[in-house]
């Protein structure tokens, strides 16, 4: 356990230390200030914007939303076309054919919505061109989309009596060019140093004829982690030795998952001219994360009682489905980080976690991916919960609730309610269809509560844009490809639309100056309230379904 604590401590310490300067940097980028990279990249930015014909004028929320949706629609269609036609396109050393429509649609939606739910095996389905031009590009663009949406929301808080939320095209270009690309470049090199492969060559064949898949892996893995996408090059994702060869590469990848989401808290604090506000959100996220990590780690370090009964010694804890080079600590930390953030990359089989150890990742996803959460989306999700917290506690101190000086009124509550409630609604209804419809039932192979958990996990993962899976479920069927694609769309745009409408409404409001009657939102009390709201909403919504899944399974283990 000592090494586990040490690793967790080093991880969180490094994460928090790195997040502050990066947050400042991101804040400067989103505010259009000059940074150290401007001499090199500003000409590129200007050229790109000129090419797109963008003047950089301020957009109202509807125009901003329109731009984001159009951008994602075109991106999704491009990926769809690419996947359907990859058989006729170059850079296809493995001679992969076009994908069936349901799978192509599911995958296109999956990568456009930053979910990266994969019902295919990467090395056996995708051409290099599809991986690089389709999937890796969407890894960048979906992350940039969420950063742009977040930037608009934060401007809504920061601006007073203004209609504009910034320019969506400028935000998309800047997020990609100044934030995601440079970080990915550095990170890819670090991965290559650890032995992650990077080549245009196809599979090599051993003397016995076994094919060993290769490809441009490092470049894709870098953005898959930094952009909290999670879509692996290989089917085994981060458990594959070419994708994640050493404990150090695993540590770096985990760091990359939470780095930008943590840094965005600081960027937020900087943009609203009160860094304490960013610290408070980061504190709430970190505390929730530590609680989740401790639960998973302790659950996984315990041996499986059923294996113990038949006399199997398990000195390292529950090692089923785990890589020996990562062990229980490295696996528990990875599983917690990848589900806290909406990453979904895995270095173990989540299906083989102990019931309690699997409940934590599942519940982290169901909380709405707000414990750090996805790049951009995690913070705007957490801000929605902050508004609920502010609303209830604001009433309790006898004032119209306000956050950062903005009054939270009926319209805001409407948008917040829609954004917070849509994903759980899709999870609940989707799971119900999954356990009810004859077309869906054959996909469930595991008996008992575990089979139920697999379905619940699939819909939770899709509707909250995580992308990881409980592997036991056969999800590459028309039912799952279509319903999960729908879940991903609703989970993504059912949140983005109300968030942008909210941003537009907030920007138009006055800012009430802070006074002793104002509820402070940077104190430990507010952090505790915020955590309470997140946990309570998550618990009240999912307790019944969790009781029939992992809880029943855990309690039946004797």
């Amino acid at each position: 356990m000592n090494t586990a604590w040490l690793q967790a401590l080093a991880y969180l310490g490094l994460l928090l230390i790195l997040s502050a300067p990066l947050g400042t940097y991101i804040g400067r980028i989103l505010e259009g200030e000059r940074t150290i990279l401007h001499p090199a990249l500003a000409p590129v930015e200007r050229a790109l914007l000129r090419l797109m014909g963008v003047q950089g004028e301020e957009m109202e929320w509807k125009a901003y939303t329109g731009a984001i949706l159009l951008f994602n629609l075109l991106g999704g269609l491009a990926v769809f076309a690419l996947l359907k036609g990859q058989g006729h396109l170059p850079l296809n050393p493995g001679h992969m054919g076009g994908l069936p429509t349901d799978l192509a649609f599911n995958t296109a939606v999956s990568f456009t919505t930053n979910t990266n739910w994969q019902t295919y095996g990467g090395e056996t389905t995708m051409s290099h061109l599809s991986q690089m031009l389709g999937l890796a590009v969407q890894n960048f663009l979906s992350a940039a989309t969420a950063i742009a949406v977040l930037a608009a929301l934060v401007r809504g808080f920061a601006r007073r009596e203004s209609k504009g939320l910034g320019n969506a095209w400028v935000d998309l270009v800047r997020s990609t060019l100044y934030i995601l690309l440079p970080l990915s470049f550095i990170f890819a090199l670090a991965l290559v140093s650890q032995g992650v492969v990077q080549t245009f060559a196809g599979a090599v064949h051993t003397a016995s004829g076994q094919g060993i898949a290769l490809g441009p892996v490092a470049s894709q893995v870098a953005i898959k982690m930094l952009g909290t996408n999670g879509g692996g090059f290989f089917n085994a994702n981060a458990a594959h030795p070419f994708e994640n060869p050493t404990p150090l590469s695993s540590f770096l990848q985990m760091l990359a998952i939470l780095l930008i989401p943590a840094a965005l808290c600081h960027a937020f604090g900087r943009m609203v001219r009160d860094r304490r506000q960013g610290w408070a959100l980061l504190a709430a996220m970190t505390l929730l994360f530590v609680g989740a990590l401790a639960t998973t780690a302790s659950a996984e370090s315990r041996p499986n009682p059923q294996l113990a009964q038949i006399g199997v010694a398990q000195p390292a804890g529950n090692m089923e489905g785990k890589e020996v080079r990562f062990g229980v600590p490295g696996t528990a930390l990875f599983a917690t980080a990848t589900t806290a953030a909406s990453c979904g990359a895995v270095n173990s089989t989540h299906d083989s976690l102990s019931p309690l150890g699997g409940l934590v990742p599942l519940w982290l996803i169901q909380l709405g991916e707000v414990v750090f959460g996805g790049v951009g989306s995690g913070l705007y999700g957490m801000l929605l919960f902050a508004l609920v917290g502010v609303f209830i506690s604001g009433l309790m101190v006898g004032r119209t609730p306000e956050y950062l000086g903005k009054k939270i009124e009926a319209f805001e509550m409407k948008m917040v309610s829609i954004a917070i409630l849509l994903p759980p609604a899709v999870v609940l209804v989707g799971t119900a269809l999954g356990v009810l419809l004859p077309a869906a039932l054959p996909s469930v192979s595991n008996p008992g509560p575990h089979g139920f958990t697999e379905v619940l996990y699939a819909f939770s993962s899709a509707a909250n844009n995580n992308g990881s899976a409980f592997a036991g479920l056969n999800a590459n069927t028309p039912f799952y490809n279509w319903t999960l694609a729908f879940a991903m769309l609703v989970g993504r745009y059912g949140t983005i639309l109300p968030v942008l409408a909210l941003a537009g409404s907030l920007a138009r409001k006055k800012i009430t100056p802070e006074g002793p009657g104002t509820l402070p939102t940077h104190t430990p009390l507010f952090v505790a309230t915020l955590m309470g709201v997140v946990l309570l909403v998550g618990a009240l919504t999912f307790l019944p379904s969790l009781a029939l899944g992992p809880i029943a399974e855990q309690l039946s283990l004797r």
Partner: protein
Amino acid sequence: MSASAQSRPLFEGALARRAVLDALLKLNPLHQLRNPVMFTVWVCSAFTTGLWIQALGGHGETRPGFILAIALWLWFTLLFANFAEAMAEGRGKAQADSLRRSKRDVRAKRLRGADRLGPFDAVDALDLRIGDLVLVEAGATIPGDGEVVEGVASVNESAITGESAPVIRESGGDRSAVTGGTLVLSDWLVIRVSSNPGDSFLDRMIAMVEGAKRQKTPNEIALDILLAGLTLVFLLATATLLPYSIFSVRAAGQGSPVTLTVLVSLLVCLIPTTIGGLLSAIGIAGMDRMIQANVIATSGRAVEAAGDVDVLLLDKTGTITLGNREAVAFLPADGVSVAALADAAQLSSLADETPEGRSIVVLAKTGHGLRERDIHALDAHFVPFTAQTRMSGVNLPGPGGMREIRKGAATAVEDYLHAAGGAFPEDLRRLVEQISMAGGTPLVVAERVVDGAGAAPSRALGVIQLKDIVKGGIKERFADLRGMGIKTVMITGDNPLTAAAIAAEAGVDDFLAQATPEAKLKLIREYQAGGRLVAMTGDGTNDAPALAQADVAVAMNSGTQAAKEAGNMVDLDSNPTKLIEIVEIGKQMLMTRGALTTFSIANDVAKYFAILPAAFATTYPALGVLNVMRLHSPESAILSAVIFNALVIVALIPLALRGVKYRPAGAAALLQRNLLVYGLGGLVVPFAGIKAIDWLLATLHLAA
């Protein structure tokens, strides 16, 4: 009215009986549609009743007795919520009835011309329109709101204000507004009617206390949305539990799927019925508390806005200071003893009936032991204040001749001294300046003796220091307000020096000196542009623009019609410090909503622990570990949760009607306290409550 309202107990027999009847009438689903949470309960109750009837027919999903028990308690949940609303409304209705009595059968003398002695038509008050002139004589009831255009009369306004001492109403000035339903006690008035029937102040007041015009306030709407959202998510969470349960039964190979009765019970327990059921009662009770404080608000929105106020503008005179200045010190000139000055000051004021004059006599007596003397025994001649001399005083015949004593403002006395060949001493000039600087008003006393040979040179005796008297306890109230985060600004016509001194003494945060109506309006706009909510009180016509601009504007009932029209509240007691109470009532209303919402949601945790193990006991017996309360049986567990859910509404009715106790404190301290009481309390209380009910059911063999 006010006296009876304030002493009315929370549960009065007659009121409660009427409320029970109303609660039954409110079961009408059309009424419930207004409230999504309670409408859901209505549908659930009707549905469970249907299940019971089905079970009676022998095709039930479980024991008919159990279904009936659940159905009945669901109906009770609804009835209890209705009862809370009816109680809150009932209190208003009783007041409305007493108001309506003063409206009945009023006849009016409508003048045909402007001449009050001219011909008139005797008409019904309901036939009067805006602009009509009516004559009201002693003993008659004023037929409608209006403005006095001629005459002076004493009027009994107790029907509106509850204050039985008569007030004077006269044409012109700030006392020209009269209210329909009040009684002229003496003399006569000619009134120009200013409102049409059905639109008068009394009508609005009746509508307000009855809640007939009650519209949801902005925060209430926002809360409604949140509650509706929660209801929806719980609806999904429970509805999907049926397929989950069917699947689980098949997967586990044992047990039976959860029954609809249990699912409906779970749903009603989870949706925020506590706050949903009490929400409208809280709003009505808030208005009711306002009325008990003798304030009529034109809308609930205004009451709620009062809780948000950041800046209070308060008139100095009458609000911060007592209306009159008082003498606080005698400061003699060089070569004059204090006793001599006090003696002269007293003599000059014996016949001075102004409050300032009386206070000089009082100071001479209390501070210097000078007994009051009979001005007639002294054969003194009182010289009253005139606009020309700007001095008052006394002429005393004495052995040396006629002694003149004069007191007045420094400039006036200086003129007097010069005219009589005297000089204004320098040391006295310094004293005068010092007093002004300290926020006081200096009155200079001078004398001369006129004998037969002519006048002796006059001389100045000293200065009387008059001071505004800051009301007792007001400083503490301002400190409270500061703690609540509300800034106080004093408005005064005084010069900046005087204003600053009084502001410092009263403890206000800021002041506006030499205030004109334009300056007030500008100040309010400045604060509003900075994002603050401004409250103010006013009574004069010149206050009207500022009142119209302010977010919370309280007009004094004694004020002009224009002021009352411009404000969004009327204080029947005409007490400017009432603003502080109004702010508290506004805050209390929001706090009560917030506290009950927190309580309601926190309650759900315990209900899950009661119902979930019970619902899946047959499928996954291992879930029995979650039955931490060790409830007797699945049926008793579910029934206990439903009963607790219904009873907690009844238990919280007094809190909803009275409001959460408000203590002036900063936001952080308030939140901490309320989270502890209603958040933590909401988590813990239902565990104990459900366990207790379950124990009772088991002991009395009421559940299987």
